[in-house]
């Protein structure tokens, strides 16, 4: 019975296990971001060990995942997460996509250590919360990148995986009657992450049903706003979705704005039916205002992309012209979101409780 209930306890007190440091230094597999820029050639192993972080590797035959020396306990994992999201994320030595890949990989190995050791629920939640926020930040910041630098599908899958695991852990907390301080802290940040989940899956009935069923103590202003936005999309009330959308702040705003291309496509599709006429035009300026376009050029480009013809001032909505099969456009950066995010330092945006509660 014991072997079923006791889990391995990590013994590695550094961000990276010694064996891995030796191996990676020997094989020249040290990442640029793990090298001290002011290094001194004479003291090689010193210069790495401080900055090296255990990298992600899949479990494979013949490889033990359960060696305590290779696993980091909760405190070290938390330290690693904070190091990555406080120090590494703001570096200007490499382009953003390199930083993003590096952090994603190292956070993945954090999650792996967490799972292998089956850490207590509260520890897992404290580790996962900032990770989820990093995914939220990265999905917005990277949305302009080319596909060779950033794969939105893969990123989104990991994002969903993390946030779903986090929500499951919250549910587990519900079943425990513990009332210590750590639990209280978690209850405070929970509504924010519940809202993030609703916004990540805007208009999705499963996510919406979950949020609606939450106990009233979690239904904060933020969560209610998220639910009303999602409900508006569920009702196809696109005008209202965009109105609500502007009221979010921080990472919630960044994540919800990633849905704009899909919302605009659906809108244009419905309008091609409802405003179907060969003679009448619909002004670009109104589309720009209602659906949060940055400039008229973007409106015209969207209309043309989906097969609609236009005159100088507006678009001709014709049912048969709308090309539904065109892939939805990729999300892009928006000035008003960028302006807003600029006002907050990145590590704060991700780690500071003030922006989360």
């Amino acid at each position, binding site marked *: 019975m014991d072997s079923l209930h006791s889990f391995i306890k990590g013994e590695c007190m550094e961000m990276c296990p010694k064996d891995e440091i030796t191996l990676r230094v020997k094989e020249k597999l040290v990442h640029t971001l793990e090298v001290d820029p002011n290094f001194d050639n004479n003291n090689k192993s010193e210069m790495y060990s401080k900055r090296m972080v255990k990298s992600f590797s899949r479990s494979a035959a013949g490889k033990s995942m359960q060696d305590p020396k290779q696993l980091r306990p909760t405190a070290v994992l938390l330290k690693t997460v904070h190091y990555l999201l406080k120090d590494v994320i703001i570096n200007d030595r490499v382009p953003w996509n390199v930083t993003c890949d590096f952090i994603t990989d190292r956070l993945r190995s954090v999650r792996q250590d967490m799972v292998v050791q089956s850490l207590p629920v509260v520890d897992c939640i404290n580790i996962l919360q900032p990770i989820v926020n990093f995914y939220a930040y990265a999905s917005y910041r990277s949305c302009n990148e080319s596909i060779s630098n950033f794969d939105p599908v893969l990123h989104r899958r990991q994002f969903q995986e993390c946030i779903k695991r986090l929500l499951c852990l919250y549910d587990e907390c519900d079943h425990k009657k513990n009332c210590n301080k750590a639990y209280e802290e978690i209850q405070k940040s929970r509504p924010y992450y519940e809202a993030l989940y609703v916004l990540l899956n805007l208009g999705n009935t499963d996510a*919406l049903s979950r949020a*609606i069923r939450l106990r009233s103590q979690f239904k904060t202003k933020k969560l209610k706003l998220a639910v009303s936005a999602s409900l508006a999309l*569920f009702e196809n009330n696109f*005008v*209202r979705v965009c*109105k609500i959308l502007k009221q979010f702040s921080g990472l919630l705003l960044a994540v919800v704005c990633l849905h704009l291309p899909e919302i605009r496509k659906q809108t244009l599709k*419905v309008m091609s039916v*409802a*405003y179907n006429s060969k003679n*009448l035009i619909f002004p670009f300026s109104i589309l720009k205002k209602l659906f949060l376009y940055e400039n008229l050029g973007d409106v015209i480009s969207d209309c043309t992309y989906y097969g609609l013809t236009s005159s100088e001032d507006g678009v001709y909505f014709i049912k048969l012209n709308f090309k539904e099969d065109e892939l939805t456009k990729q999300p892009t950066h928006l000035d008003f979101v960028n302006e807003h995010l600029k006002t907050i330092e990145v590590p704060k945006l991700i780690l500071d409780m003030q922006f989360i509660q």
Partner: protein
Amino acid sequence: MTFMNVANYLQIIDRSWRSCNGQTVSMFVSIRHDHAKYRNYYIENPENMVEKFLPAPVDELVIYHLKCLYAISMDDFLSAYQFQTGLVQAFTKILQAQKEENWSLPIMNVVCSDLRFIAQQAEKQRVGVSEKPGEFLEKAADSLMGCFRICAGDTRTDNRDTKRKGMLALVVKLCLIVIIKRQIMKILLGYIPNRKVLEKYNVLEFWDLVQAVCQGNLKWFDEIMEKHESFFIACGIYLIVDKLKIIAYRNLFKKVYLILSTHQIPVESLQTALEFLGQDVDLDETQCIVANLINEGKIKGYISHQHRKVVVSKQNPFPPLTST
């Protein structure tokens, strides 16, 4: 492979029944318990065998149960449904006869949820065109209501032994969800549920909802949604109910159209109507709502943004919902 032999099985039931062990009996009359997977329990005529081991009234339950297993093994859910109904009705009588005790409630939970399961399977197997869809489920619900009445009526017994404890598990889950979802689906498809049906299942909340939707009275609709929010959420139907809103919009706009008696309805008039009913919407949002109705074929016509008018078809501008 065999499970324990049937004689042994019957002895266990006999002992558990005598010692008022509802939990154990419930396991052995469930179609989902392990024993139901073994062929030695598929007996076409178990009467003689069972009566040898078991006294009345429990013998009747077990006979129905074994017959039901036999029918399921033959993949005949229509007969299985008949037997399980017999089982539930026989049990209902027993339950009624047991004064001031509630140890048999676990059995009720099991046989009732089995009945619902079998009814669903029977729905899939129906052959004749003459039978109405949902008939098995509705009849199953009737049987469950029988149990419910007994539980609900057991008011004088001491709290510890009252059968009222069984009400919650029973009806809220089984009846309401089966019946109500169907009713709401019907409204969405343009049918108005019969008041008697709603009355019968004690869900008159829905009658108001139906009235509000029919009248296009969005204010009333919102009030009902708010008042019964937790009920709708608990039944898992909140989002389906919310979908009724679009029908309320359609009915309201139809009224505006009839009052103005014009084929060119100013968007402003529609917005005024919405605002009057407590909806916080501007012209753009009103147009968006109309656009959705046109897109779904619930209004025939088009919107002219320049004139801020909805131009509706001269023929049948609001087609009956049953046709869309």
